[in-house]
């Protein structure tokens, strides 16, 4: 099994989530994150003083998948979240040794199959 972590633009989440569902993937965990990289910061002004915001709100999605699905899921993410603008985000693929479904105690693939 693999864990896919992707960092995307918040406004893309809703569509990605739906498409993942269409694709048969319902299980995922989301956290609000902030990130930086090549994306240029934006300048604000408050009471006449300027300040720079150079961390951007991002959504971090974690999905644990079976090996065979990762490829297509990555393609899906790229297609939906890739605007072609700096800041679209990243996908990280990481190894997972085991998964347990707390409710049933079953582990391995059975723990994530719906």
């Amino acid at each position, binding site marked *: 099994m693999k864990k896919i972590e992707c960092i995307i633009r*918040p406004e893309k*989440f*809703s*569509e990605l*989530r*739906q*498409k*993942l*569902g*269409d*694709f*048969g993937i*319902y299980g995922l965990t*989301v956290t*609000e994150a902030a990130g930086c990289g090549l994306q240029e910061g934006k300048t604000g002004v408050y009471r006449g003083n300027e300040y720079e915001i150079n961390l951007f709100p991002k*959504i971090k999605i974690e999905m644990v998948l079976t090996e065979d699905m990762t490829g*297509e899921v990555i*393609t*899906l993410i790229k*297609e*939906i979240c890739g605007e072609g603008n700096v800041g679209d985000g990243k996908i990280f693929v990481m190894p997972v040794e085991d998964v347990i479904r707390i409710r049933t105690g079953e582990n391995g693939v059975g723990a994530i199959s719906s």
Partner: protein
Amino acid sequence: MESVDMSWVMLGTILVFFMHAGFSMVETGFTRSKNSLNILMKNFLTISIGAVLYFIVGYGFMFGTDAFGFIGTDGFVLNGVEDIGFFIFQSMFAATCATIISGAVAERIKLNSYILLTIVMTAFIYPVVGHWVWGGGWLSELGFVDFAGSTVVHFTGAAGAIAAVMLLGARIGKYSKDGKSNVIPASNVPLGALGVFLLWFGWFGFNGGSALAADVTVVPHVISTTMLSASAAVIASAYYSSLRYKKIDASLTLNGALGGLVGITAGTAAVSLTGSIIIGLISGIVLVEGVAFVDRNLKLDDPVGAIAVHGACGIWGTIAVGFFATDGGLFYGGGATLLGIQALGVVATFAWTFIMTFIVFGVIKAVAGIRVSEEEEISGLDFAEHGSQAYELKDIMVTTPPARQSNTGPTGATLVERLDQLHGKSIKMD
């Protein structure tokens, strides 16, 4: 009636109305955000139902022709009532009394059961007490002094709150199995502080308007004693709480302001300015001790401190008149008579209100139930009873749910296109 007197009483009316904004903000600020909508609805419905019912029956029971010094018997729907201004001023008080309970029972009471209680409170329980003291009933005959309602309004509300909380029980997690009182922090103290200011502001109308005329000999005195008592109470509760708990407790200091206002309400026109400061100082201490006593000894879970504010300080304020009244007070050589009458008034009011509320709410409990389910309480009353929440819901939380189905081989350039073919153009929601 003189224009100037009418204007003054109408100003008072408007200000007392505004106190309901204060109650709402205090109660919303001192409780958890998952129950805010529910608390707001309780407050809006209380003032609304209170006003309408007081028009229909309450005013009659309170100011109608006296029967046995116990209750009024006519003037329902203002039949034959001349002074509409007096009615509307009084109707605001009725709702105030009822709304005191809403804070004490917050975060776990069933809305509809609460509404039933409010109906009985504003239509009957409160008007009867009101009749005793202000409607020519037996207490007024005895010479009981309660200028603006330390007992009639505030203590009556608190007595009802005690009965209600006893029947309702504490919020989940408030008391540990070993009886330890746990902390359930406030969600928005600045809003609560604003509420205290709104109440303080409105109180000038509550006390000042009770002069029922723009009387130059009474009104400035009332405004001054009200201001000084509240101020003294703030100082007392701030420093007494820091003495007792090492820190100036913000929410207790805010309660303290209200305690000082409740404390001066009975004697506002009867005590001297210096007297009002002393009454306020003591109110501030009574409040801090009152909260501790209710919370840790009586183990009554009162999220906003309503019982201490309106109960403990209400009693103190009523009794204080017996000591500090420049005319008839013990400290002014007036002997103990007045003191005794004041005490009697407190006891009688408690007996009537507590018993009546206990019976009424007990029946509601038996018949309809008064408490939300444990699950609803944990997830919050807002979503359960109102299908929504008080503060912003993150965009990502609201999405169109993915349709569940198996993949039947699609065709098309990109995965997305293929998926779209499967499902028809996907509806995207913001």
